[in-house]
């Protein structure tokens, strides 16, 4: 394929992690953020990366998104697949195949909804996750259970959240 290869994004992700940790400590969400990661570890959503890197890794930075008025989960971890190591280098999203658009046209649905005397709508809770079989190639620089910024653990993302 005739395109620049995807950089590991390790340096950028670590930098973002340090910023993120400082921010979490400042706004008092550090413990909560860490507990989400611990939960993900227990549930098998993430696992510690192997010690030895193969050179094919890609690191995804992540950040906490706080939704004060949300019903259930107020603090969520959001992964940034659009992050790039350098401005002229591709992001993971740039290198992913988005696939064909499968969604209906919003306008069509809105117009059709007017034809029903009784209308019913609902939200699918997309708790669906895709499990990655060929793991080890997508990593996320993470705080882990360490209280220090100096040695961040990284975790392999085993599931992608489709939201």
């Amino acid at each position, binding site marked *: 394929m005739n395109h620049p290869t995807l950089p590991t994004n390790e340096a950028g992700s670590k930098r973002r992690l340090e910023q993120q940790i400082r921010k979490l400590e400042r706004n008092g969400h550090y413990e909560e953020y860490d507990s989400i990661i611990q939960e993900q570890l227990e549930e098998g959503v993430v696992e510690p990366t192997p010690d030895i890197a193969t050179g094919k890794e890609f690191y995804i930075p992540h950040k906490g998104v706080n939704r004060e008025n949300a019903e259930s989960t107020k603090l969520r971890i959001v992964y940034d697949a659009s992050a790039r190591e350098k401005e002229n280098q591709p992001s993971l999203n740039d290198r992913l195949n988005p696939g*064909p658009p499968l969604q209906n046209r*919003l306008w069509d649905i*809105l117009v059709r909804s007017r034809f029903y005397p009784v209308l019913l709508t*609902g939200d699918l809770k997309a708790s*669906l996750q895709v499990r990655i079989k060929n793991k080890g190639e997508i990593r996320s620089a993470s705080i882990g259970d360490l209280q220090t910024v100096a040695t961040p653990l990284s975790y392999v993302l085993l599931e992608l959240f489709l939201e």
Partner: protein
Amino acid sequence: MTCSPFLLGGVISQHLQTWGSQYPELIKEFRDGLYIDDLMTGGKNAEIIAEKKIITAEVFKDASFTIHKWNSNVPDLEAISSSPCEEGLTYAKQQLGGAKPSEGKLLGVPRNREEDVTSIILQIAHRNN
């Protein structure tokens, strides 16, 4: 991720296919009424929809999707709950003044249920010549 909508759409589509022979008409309706993770359906009267709602919840539950934020122009239909917990939260939110019951959204588009008005703001792009 850029491929997430495709993966989600593909999984839903695949799942609906497995139910296609059991509820062919309903599944066709789902296919036409789905927008990413929002579902729009309807029918002639409240009785039909009440039954449809139960089957809808069953079909999606089978793929571990729960449907929440039910909305209807017939208020009773929102009360028949497939997951009491979700509805309870929404109810609590309404009581706390989080969202006015008349101000809902239809597939992310603002909609006033009492007046039965769906509003869309079209932005006209100005071209700089």
